[in-house]
């Protein structure tokens, strides 16, 4: 089908209901963009979506953090841009970020992938990080296999490795 206004192929169907009367227009994207009230961007950029998502959900958590002692970024600044100020923000806003990460990453709160051989910005020895990563992988496998006895043991080992009681 051709666009009603020009000769390009019609890819958009606009249905308008005005005063109870329904009219349909077959248009190409360029002509459709001229129609009042028609959203010109059919696909919202993914980053925009994610940012909106971050902004929408970050307000739901009780704000406990003030600002990052290293870069001075406030939680409110992050809510405006969706971008963090420095690597230390993750620790500074831990409590606020966690529920947000869970929503963005299918419930995940812990990294399970590659670990650098050098230490990066943390003081945690790499060997221990590797162990914890491996243990966590095993834990999720144990849970999947419904081997809860093993899962409980692994959980204790992870706690020990992380130094948390």
């Amino acid at each position, binding site marked *: 089908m051709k666009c009603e206004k020009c000769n390009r192929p019609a890819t958009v169907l606009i249905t308008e209901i005005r005063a109870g009367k329904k009219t349909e227009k077959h248009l190409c994207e360029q002509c459709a963009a001229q129609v009042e009230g028609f959203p010109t961007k059919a696909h919202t950029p993914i980053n925009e979506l994610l940012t909106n998502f971050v902004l929408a959900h970050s307000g739901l958590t009780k704000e406990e953090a003030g600002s990052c002692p290293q870069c001075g970024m406030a939680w409110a600044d992050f809510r405006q841009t*969706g971008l963090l100020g420095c*690597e230390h923000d993750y620790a500074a806003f831990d409590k606020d970020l966690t529920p947000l990460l869970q929503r963005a990453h299918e419930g995940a709160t812990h990294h399970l992938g590659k670990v650098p051989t050098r230490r990066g910005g943390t003081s945690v020895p790499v060997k221990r990080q590797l162990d914890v990563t491996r243990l966590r992988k095993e834990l999720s496998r144990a849970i999947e296999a419904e081997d809860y006895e093993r899962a409980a043991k692994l959980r204790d080992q992870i706690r020990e490795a992380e130094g948390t009681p």
Partner: protein
Amino acid sequence: MKLSDLTSQAGEWLRGSGPMSDIVISSRIRLARNVSGFPFLVRCTRTQRQTLEHKVRDTILAARLSPKTLYVDLENAPEIDRQLLVERHLISRPHKEAQGARGVAIGENETLAIMVNEEDHLRIQVLRSGLQLEEAWEQINAVDDQLEGTLDFAFHPRFGYLTACPTNVGTGIRVSVMLHLPALKLTSEIEKVFRAAKELRLAVRGLYGEGTEATGDFYQISNQTTLGKSEEEIIGDFKHLVIPKIIEYEQHARKSLLNDRPAALDDKIWRALGLLRSARLMETEETLIALSHVRLGVNLNRVKDIDINKVNELFLLTQEAHLQRILGKKLEADARKAARAEFIRQRLSAE
């Protein structure tokens, strides 16, 4: 290597070779990394940004990641060069438009591109033709290891690699597979792709990534989850679950077009070819749509006198920066349409 050396041939992503290349255009993996000790870019001062750019550039060049690595200083590069890099998928649109010290390192026949000072300090990308996710992962993992030998990347035992946007944290990985799905579009079954992707929480986007439309029947499938899964698991989901399914849908749609509606199929293909061989003014978008149908025709062996590489090349060379580079002059919109039509006619004239 100079930037001008790139212009005359198709980039890696459109080389049209590699496994399943009649449907899978390219496999891309990128890793987001930040250098520990520097703030993320929104909090960097001008000086910090410059220092960082120098440090990362020197590291990349010293690492000898490939025999010939080209580094482009984007702060001082002309608009047309930056647009050219976008068209070749070597930099993102935001990176082209940004301000301040930033650049891109390009190596290994354009399979490797490292953006410096984009949203994160480093955005390492490996791009391969066809379905080559494992090869791409091997290559990018090795590059990451090499850079990590010199640079201290921001990493947290619980959160993983730390990124400016929390949606990238953890692995910092984005896997994108670009697919050419003209038959699913023609049979109005493209919704199947969106459904298959949604099941695995993957995003479907257009030709130039974020915020672009699916023009010319090109669809890019990318992961959104970066935390709580290993790189191999994320790649495995693509390789074993979603991509084979979509390939099967497209193959099925191609078969049913051939069996049930051969005349309608040929009409689409030959109209497109007629347009490309005759038109005097061609816009970018209608060029992409027509080339897409011709590509389908060549891949289904309905068109026999055109080489698939010629079609693949045209997708790239008819875009504005490439066209102007080839012709060696700046062209306004109308002149560009005429030049594009002429260029296509020349390339597609009988051999």
